[in-house]
């Protein structure tokens, strides 16, 4: 039966190859596009989260609800240590306070962020955008936004004074030397941000072993769900974990939107190809009425004839799918290691959008869904098409079919 199916496909070689190539091309195109898509999401997520926000953040539930200075995580150090024991996870604390920043006579409202510079530098990209000076490495140094520096007239090496209200209404005060100026690209931040060493800020604002948030960074973002579950198991009742999906809902939404658009496009493409396949296949079947008549005259049952044609259809679609995957897979493996330069793909617009991060290339990612969706749809589509167009053999009467000259 395999032999008969194969020979039948060879009967019209041109048509068979054309159909198989059609299937192969669709497989190639869709697998490639889907892999590229999942690769680009990864980049989007990665560059967005790696910039400043992190893959996840832990805060107290009421801080998540409304960030107030007093709503801190207690015993922050031991919690950090516990969480860092989880494989593939890096944790660093932040405190966040509002205050007045002054240099000489000029004052401005600002947000003072106490961070672990050593840890954050390794993980986050915002520190790559220091346009003057360097990332602080002493306890009395600060990194300030470019717009703020301009507005208060602060230069590298200048002293700035930070005044705010610490815990329980006490007055908090600290003096920092400007070690670096950062331009994040976001006006809001550049106008108001001051990064200073975690310990110094915590001291100045009278916090003891407390933090407003613990930022989580994963080595492998695809393990997020597992690690998030592990983390949550370790958290006391009053603390909550927000992953990037909650922290940056817009990113998640735009990905969902893009996915939906992609699916629409892929479905259309697959439907078109399936129709083309159906068309060539059905044309071939109509020419074979007499042959089917002969089969049945010899004692084959209609369902056996249908089965025979199903087999042919399967061989054909497998041929096409293998062809497509054989082309797509090496291409993807190659591009996954080399990457595609972003300005090559999408021009300036894309590279500007991605510029927030340090990535300038997309690495397509072959996932199970991206590599199996098109083949499955096409195989099933071809089988169905062959089935629908052979159901009529039940109505073929061998006598009439063989009579037709």
């Amino acid at each position, binding site marked *: 039966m395999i032999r008969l199916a194969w020979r039948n496909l060879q009967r019209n070689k041109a048509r068979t190859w054309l159909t198989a190539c059609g299937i192969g091309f669709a497989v190639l195109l869709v697998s490639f596009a889907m892999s590229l898509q999942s690769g680009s999401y990864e980049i989007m997520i990665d560059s967005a989260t790696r910039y400043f926000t992190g893959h996840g953040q832990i805060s107290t539930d009421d801080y998540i609800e409304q960030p107030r200075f007093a709503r801190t995580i207690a015993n922050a150090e031991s919690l950090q240590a516990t969480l860092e024991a989880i494989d593939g996870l890096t944790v660093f604390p932040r405190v966040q306070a509002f205050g007045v920043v002054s240099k000489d006579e000029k004052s401005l409202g600002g947000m003072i962020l106490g961070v672990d510079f050593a840890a954050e530098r390794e993980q986050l990209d915002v520190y790559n955008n220091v346009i003057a000076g360097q990332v602080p490495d002493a306890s009395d140094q600060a990194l300030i936004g470019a717009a703020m520096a301009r507005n208060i007239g602060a230069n590298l090496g200048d002293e700035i004074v930070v005044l705010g209200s610490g815990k329980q209404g006490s007055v908090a005060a600290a003096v920092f030397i400007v070690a670096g100026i950062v331009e994040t690209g976001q006006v809001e931040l550049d106008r108001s941000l001051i990064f200073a060493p975690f310990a110094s800020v915590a001291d100045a604002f009278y916090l003891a072993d407390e933090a407003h948030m613990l930022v989580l960074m994963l080595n492998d973002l695809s393990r997020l769900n597992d690690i998030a579950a592990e983390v949550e198991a370790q958290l006391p009742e009053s603390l909550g974990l927000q992953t990037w999906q909650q922290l940056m809902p817009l990113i998640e939404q735009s990905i969902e939107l893009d996915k939906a658009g992609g699916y629409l496009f892929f479905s259309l493409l697959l439907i078109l190809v399936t129709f083309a396949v159906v068309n060539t296949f059905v044309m071939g079947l109509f020419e074979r009425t007499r042959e089917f008549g*002969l089969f049945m005259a010899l004692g084959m049952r209609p369902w056996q004839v249908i089965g025979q044609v199903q087999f042919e259809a399967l061989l054909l679609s497998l041929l096409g799918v293998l062809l497509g995957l054989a082309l797509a897979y090496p291409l993807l493996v190659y591009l996954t290691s080399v990457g595609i330069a972003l300005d090559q793909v999408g021009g300036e617009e894309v590279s500007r959008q991605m510029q927030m991060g340090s990535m300038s290339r997309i690495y397509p990612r072959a996932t199970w869904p991206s590599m199996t969706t098109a083949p499955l749809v096409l195989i099933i589509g071809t089988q169905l098409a062959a089935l629908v167009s052979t159901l009529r053999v039940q109505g073929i009467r061998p006598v009439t079919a063989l009579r037709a000259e």
Partner: protein
Amino acid sequence: MTEFAETSKATSPVVECRGVQRIYQQDSVPVYALRGADLTIHAGEFVSLAGPSGSGKSTLLNVIGGLDGFDAGSVTVGGVDLAALTPAQLAQTRLHNVGFVFQAYNLIPVLSARENVEFILQLQGVASQQRRSRADRALRSMGLAELGDRRPGELSGGQQQRVAIARAIVTEPVLLLADEPTANLDSKTTSELLAVLRDLNQQQGMTIVTATHDPIVMEYTSRQVTMLDGEIRQDDGVTA
């Protein structure tokens, strides 16, 4: 099915038609293809079915072979009443008990001669080793031992018809039906093919019914039946 075959050869006639009618509706006008045909055929006979075009020869062969239904009368083949069989059972009957040779388009073009013969054994579920040897034997008996690997398109018309006969007899049917098997052959090849059929009848006792226009066929057959307007008009074996 084997049981069926044994009883048939031993006792009752191979074919018994009584008052068979076959009415086609053509554009809602009834066409009487058979209007009460009576015919009895015994094992070992070689019957020619003659008559003008449209007299019902093909229709009668198809009815006997279980390829076509009928509207009145009775048909038994090997003692089995065809009217009582389901389509599936009719297909089984065709597969196991009747061999067919048609006027044209007998062979599956993409399969070699041997594969064409094996095909029907495969439908019967015969194991592949046996298939091969039985197909070769059938081809040899048709003088085609050398040509088993050729495709139908690479064979002459006479050779193709002999492959069709090989396929028809490889299942060892109780009855071989041939509908104008020589219609597309020249006179020399026609004689050769008829000789092959006669040998088959005389040496292996195969019961054969062949419809024909060609008077020369009558020189080879053991009994001549003539049809006209859907009825049997003349039958020189009616005494049997």
